[in-house]
């Protein structure tokens, strides 16, 4: 499980003269579901295309299953890719879409039929053989694209924001579906998303990327609880991030006495880590909204806006009124600069 299966060493990816991904090192383990997470434009798709062989690295090397594939063309790498747009073949029906790669291998017709049927069954599309992609819903097209890659028994299956075109409910459904397929097939999956909740829910490990570089790599629990930089913290929902000077939290708008002396240059709190209703500081309520299990406040404080979640039992405080709060040491996450 822990042996390196895909290894990117010092890989630099360029478009023309501009560097999209500089000097990337990344190892992916056999059978894991690894997630590339990051904002739009941070190089997730680019990295994936390099693994697939659709983009040649300007320098560095890529090994898959112990073999140097840096110069192996995309059609000989044995890697599957589910495109963000699905990229189904509109002139072929569902069966022929899935059978496409098998036919290229000139397998016996019986085997093609058997494997295609099995592929369609895996994604729950039995009986849809004759449908053209245009006659299928977004979710079904998504499954079809998945089946088309899976029947090839790829060494690695890459998925580029596969759920981003689906509506919220279907997205949750496909999440579990993907996990099930991965458990069933044991295929190594690289999953790209800009949705942190999706990454946390699905991944064995998360690679958080920023401007073509790896910002932090770890298990979802790791990243969620212990982001190391302001960027990672922000991505993981630490919405209050302040500089530290001595025992004070500082922003451009002002300072607040913390009552303890942090060792790190930055501190971050999630909204639910800010205690509300009592505490040494005052904030004027700028906005408030009901969120089911809690109530969300935006407070205008000496530090500027602070986001805080209050227990639902606390009486509602109207906009314009003041609320006391505290930034406790216990829920503070120290960050490096």
């Amino acid at each position, binding site marked *: 499980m822990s042996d390196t299966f895909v290894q990117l060493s010092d890989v630099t990816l360029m478009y023309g003269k501009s560097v999209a991904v500089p000097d990337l090192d990344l190892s992916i383990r056999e059978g894991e579901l690894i997630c590339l997470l990051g904002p739009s434009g941070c190089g997730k798709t680019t990295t994936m295309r390099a693994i697939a062989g*659709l983009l040649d690295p300007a320098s560095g090397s890529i090994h898959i299953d112990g073999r140097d594939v840096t110069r192996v063309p995309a*059609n000989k790498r044995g890697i599957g*890719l589910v495109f963000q*747009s699905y*990229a189904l*073949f509109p*002139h072929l029906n569902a069966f022929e879409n899935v059978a496409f790669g098998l036919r*290229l291998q000139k397998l016996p017709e019986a085997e093609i039929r058997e494997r295609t049927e099995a592929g369609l069954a895996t994604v729950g599309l039995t009986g849809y053989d004759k449908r053209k992609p245009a006659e299928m819903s977004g979710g079904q097209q998504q499954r079809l694209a998945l089946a*088309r*890659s899976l029947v090839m028994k790829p060494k690695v299956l890459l998925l580029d924001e596969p759920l981003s075109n689906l509506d919220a409910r279907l997205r949750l459904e496909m999440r579990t579906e993907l996990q099930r397929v991965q458990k069933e097939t044991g295929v190594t999956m690289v999953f790209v998303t800009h949705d942190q909740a999706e990454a946390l829910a699905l991944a064995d490990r998360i690679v958080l990327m920023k401007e073509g570089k790896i910002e932090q790599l770890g298990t979802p629990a790791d990243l969620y609880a212990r982001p190391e930089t302001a960027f990672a913290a922000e991505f993981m929902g630490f919405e209050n991030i302040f500089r530290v000077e001595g025992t004070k939290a500082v922003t451009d708008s002002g300072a607040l006495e913390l009552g303890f002396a942090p060792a790190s240059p930055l501190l971050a709190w999630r909204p639910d880590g800010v205690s509300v209703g009592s505490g040494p500081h005052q904030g004027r309520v700028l906005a408030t909204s009901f969120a089911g299990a809690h109530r969300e406040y935006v407070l205008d404080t000496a530090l500027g806006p602070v986001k805080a979640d209050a227990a639902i039992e606390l009486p509602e405080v109207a906009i314009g009124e003041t609320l006391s709060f505290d930034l406790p040491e216990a829920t503070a996450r120290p960050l490096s600069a």
Partner: protein
Amino acid sequence: MNTSSRLLANWVILGLTLTFLIGPFLIIILAGASDTSYLAFPPEGLTLKWYLKVFTVESFRASFLLSMALAVFGTLAALLLGVPAAYALNRYALPGAETIRTIVAAPIIVPGIIVGLALLRYLVVPTGVTVTLALFMAHTALVLPYAVRVVSSSMHNLRADMEEAAVLLGCSRLQAFTKVVLPNIRGGVLAAFILGFVTSFNQVPVSLFLSGPGVRTLPIDMLAYMEITFDPSVAALSALLAFMSLAIVFVAERLLGFSRYV
């Protein structure tokens, strides 16, 4: 305007449109059937003899075959050049793509008579290229813009990632083109072929200067025929050719919804 007068206006416009579209066609059909030795409209008496005579005029037969061959092979050549050109223009952010498009469209913009004269003066005369070859080249160039334009528009919605998907499933680049791109632009290619065929077949100005002993396209031959003989057989031939074009377009429309691509 109330509904009924608007409806009336619509009918009037429709009627006028049909009159201008179908009227000339009807006139030609009838003029070709006039039982006179000269071209007459309205026809005086009706006969089919001019329609039959068309098939006995030796030069018509030769020039029909030449025009057919030019239309078929000129259009095929234009597609052979035009499909890859359309593909490249759509797929790659070529430097100067707009300029290339303009150059490709030039034969539509430049008056045909100038294209024909230029080819005669600077190709046929100095190099001694045969007139037939010059005609072939001229018709290919003439049809090329249509080929590029029509194939381009059918390629427009074809995303590059479909080909990449095919490559990842094991295709070479060429296989991805033949197995994924071509099947999806088949309708556009056929539409381009028909449009090119009709354009080439009916071409007059470009072909005007490009004729030699025994080498004339059908429309030019008809012009020449009319200078000497003024009988209704030219009208009869025109009517037959119009029927041929109509039949082609009709079949194309039936087979693949030709009008979607033009």
